[in-house]
């Protein structure tokens, strides 16, 4: 252990920003344009939503525990499924990714805040409004047209109640909010990097933020346009997606799958970026494949989004488009493979201590590999025509999104937990929750591959005994219960460690990027002194210069000068 100071010096009063301390806490939270406060609200909301999503998934699975179950009616099942999809995508995974990027990136580039803080604040409030709106629908009619409400089913004549309107309003508010947050972050990363932080010196997660933000800036307006068209169809008798005369139901599939596929890739890219940071820190040296990883992340974002028609292998689109999507999907093996290779070999050839972030990161890679392999095999034209819309496809998507979204999310949050809260995450509870979640995911999803190959379709509220899928469904429901318990344990650990965890130093993992220079939790203005960046690992330079200065001065420990 070097002589890095365990307590940072107090901040200088002349650069302190923020509002007066006599306002109540909730008012300060609600009105703060600080990127750290906004991100913490986003991340907390995401972990509240993952509990709701897991609960809804559990209810859906309980209905499918035995053939011809009468636990839920068809309408209730469709509503739970629709709300589950909206919660998992729009209230859990996307806000978690954006929250992490929005918290960490300004710190990593050594900035004192974001460029357009009020824009970010507006984004947060649009997100909160969208989330409340979705759950307020339980007071009247929840959406019931499926995870992706395909017109004409989602049009007014076939679904006359308000459910789909709520879905449109809620998802468009959340998407617009995320878009505003992302624009803020993009401008920040572009304009507010610390002196000396050229792009070639930017940490992997800053590159990740740039890639994901550009991707969302492109896909979110497309989805907002589609939502507007659907709203016009439903409320103003528009006819964009009406079959036959003047409209095209297929148009919605294209527009919505551009967004959903892009969001899927954004989740994978964000979490792989976070896992790269974790692996770099825990293996205690610069990642050897840094450039390969950054290039691969960009390639995944681009190629993955362009391959949106891989979701439409059964739709009436030209055969060439399907083969094009298959080519793009298969070529994704290369960037994903490069990232997996670089991360795994970095861990294998190092001396590390297995802590919660690295454990969750390895779990994410393990589960993600299963999901990605299955997704690629289904993107072939022949298998897509057989396996799409079955539980095989469901299991593949869930393996990838639970792997990257949930495990990657817990990895990233437990890695930056000391920075966000000033406390250490309880290691024992984290380990137990990891293994419960890991076993739950395997037991919940592996049997569904079998059910999908047998031909069980998703979205149907019951199945029949002669379909040969009863045992698969029974095991999957049991596994979902274990997964639910694991999620409750993991989220509970985040909550409990917030008040009970050991106090953290500013740099508990000895990281190499600038967020570890700030206090834990950081002051509103992040840094007293803007560091001068000279390499890819500025924090390493700061530690070395401290050691050097100490050697020169031969000062006794505990009387350090302010850092940098």
């Amino acid at each position, binding site marked *: 252990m070097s002589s890095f100071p365990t307590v940072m010096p107090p901040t200088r009063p002349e650069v302190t920003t923020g509002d007066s301390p006599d306002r109540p806490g909730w008012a300060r939270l609600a009105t703060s344009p600080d990127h750290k406060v906004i991100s913490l609200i986003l991340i907390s909301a995401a972990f509240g939503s993952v509990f709701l999503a897991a609960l809804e998934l559990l209810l859906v699975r309980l209905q499918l525990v035995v053939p011809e179950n009468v636990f839920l009616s068809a309408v209730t099942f469709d509503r739970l499924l629709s709300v589950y999809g909206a919660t998992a995508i729009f209230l859990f995974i996307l806000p978690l990714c954006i929250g992490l990027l929005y918290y960490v990136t300004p710190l990593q580039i050594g900035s004192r805040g974001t460029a357009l803080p009020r824009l970010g604040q507006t984004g947060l409030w649009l997100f909160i409004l969208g989330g409340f709106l979705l759950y307020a629908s339980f007071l009247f009619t929840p959406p019931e047209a499926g995870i992706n409400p395909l017109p004409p089913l989602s049009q007014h004549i076939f679904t006359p109640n308000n459910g789909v309107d709520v879905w449109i309003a809620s998802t468009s508010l959340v998407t617009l909010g995320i878009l505003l947050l992302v624009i803020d972050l993009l401008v920040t990363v572009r304009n507010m990097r610390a002196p000396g932080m050229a792009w070639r010196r930017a940490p992997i997660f800053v590159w990740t933020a740039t890639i994901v933000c550009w991707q969302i800036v492109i896909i979110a307006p497309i989805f907002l346009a589609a939502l507007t068209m659907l709203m016009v169809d439903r409320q103003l008798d528009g006819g964009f997606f009406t079959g036959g005369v003047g409209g095209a139901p297929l148009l919605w599939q294209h527009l919505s799958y551009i967004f959903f596929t892009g969001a899927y890739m954004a989740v994978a890219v964000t979490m792989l970026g976070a896992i790269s940071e974790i692996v770099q820190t825990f293996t205690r040296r610069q990642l050897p494949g840094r450039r390969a990883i950054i290039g691969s992340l960009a390639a995944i974002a681009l190629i993955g989004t362009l391959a949106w028609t891989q979701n439409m292998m059964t739709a009436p689109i030209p055969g060439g488009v399907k083969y094009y999507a298959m080519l793009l999907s298969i070529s994704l093996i290369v960037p994903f493979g490069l990232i997996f290779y670089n991360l795994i070999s970095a861990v294998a050839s190092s001396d590390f201590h297995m802590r919660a972030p690295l454990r969750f990161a390895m779990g994410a890679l393990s589960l993600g590999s299963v999901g990605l392999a299955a997704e690629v095999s289904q993107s072939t034209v022949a298998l897509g025509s057989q396996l799409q819309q079955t539980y095989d496809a469901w299991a593949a998507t869930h393996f990838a999104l639970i792997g990257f979204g949930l495990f990657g999310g817990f990895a990233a949050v437990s890695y930056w937990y000391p920075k966000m809260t000033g406390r250490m995450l309880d290691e024992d509870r984290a380990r137990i929750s990891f293994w419960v979640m890991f076993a739950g995911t395997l*037991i919940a999803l592996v049997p569904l591959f079998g059910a999908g190959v047998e031909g069980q379709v998703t979205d149907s509220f019951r199945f029949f005994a002669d379909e040969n899928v009863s045992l698969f469904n029974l095991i999957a429901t049991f596994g979902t219960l274990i997964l639910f318990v694991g999620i409750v344990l993991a989220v509970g650990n985040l909550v409990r460690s917030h008040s009970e965890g050991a106090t953290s130093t500013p740099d508990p993992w000895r990281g190499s990027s600038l967020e570890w220079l700030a206090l834990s939790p950081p002051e509103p203005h992040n840094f007293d002194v803007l560091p001068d960046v000279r390499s890819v690992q500025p924090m390493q330079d700061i530690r070395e210069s401290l050691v050097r200065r100490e050697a020169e001065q031969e000062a006794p420990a505990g009387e350090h000068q302010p850092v940098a």
Partner: protein
Amino acid sequence: MLSRSGKILPLALTIASAATAMAAFASPASAFSLNPDAASPGIEKINTFHWIIFVVTVIAIVIVNLAILRAAKPRHRHVQSESTGGGRQMRVGFGLGVVALALFVTATVFSSQAREVPVGSSEVAGLNADDQLEIRVTGQQWLWRYDYPNTAFSYHRLVVPVDTTVALNLVSADVIHGWNVPALTGKAQAVPGKTNSLYFRADREGVFTGQASVLSGQGYDTMQSEVAVVSLAKYEAFVQRLRAAIQEAQDSVVATQQKELREAAEETPTGEVEPQP
């Protein structure tokens, strides 16, 4: 602490794989075969392709996860930093690229073969110039309507002759429906305002069903796609019977209407030209 986690992972993996294997082998048709009752050459090719992809995928997953397990194995040693320069990455990238390319070529070849249209072998009435039997399939909430050549139609069950190329033209009358008969054709969406085409040639007789595969409303779970493959003679008899029944129904409607018109015409004058006393 470290040794305990080393024990739990194999345990979890064993439970999951044992449960899955149990479920897979407990079901009568082995779950590892995509379509054990494949009844068309195209689906048999897809089955073969599925086997190849399945094996390749499982090998890839096992290699990656063994590497993760080995990398993350708890240990207390000091590892010399290996030389992981650009050359090695290039080699790995190159290798992966080759693998991806090989996969792509395989996929293309097999997929295109699976979608190849086999030549029809019969001269049944209704076959067009390309020796195909063209049938229009209309999805509606929550059943299928089949229009055979020359005005015959039926609901619920499609009847086709064996060893004949059948072209299904799928359309929808209301919302999107998912046509799905795994043993014969695979899935295809019936979208309003657009025609989706499927080709198949059944090589044995039997009844093949599948569950509709796109959420279409509240009766979705009861919507079945059902195809009965029969001999050519039976198919012709079936279509003749349909035509006769339709003709009879139309005749009876026409007769009823004419009768009503006649009666109306007879009643009206008698009512009006009532002789005055």
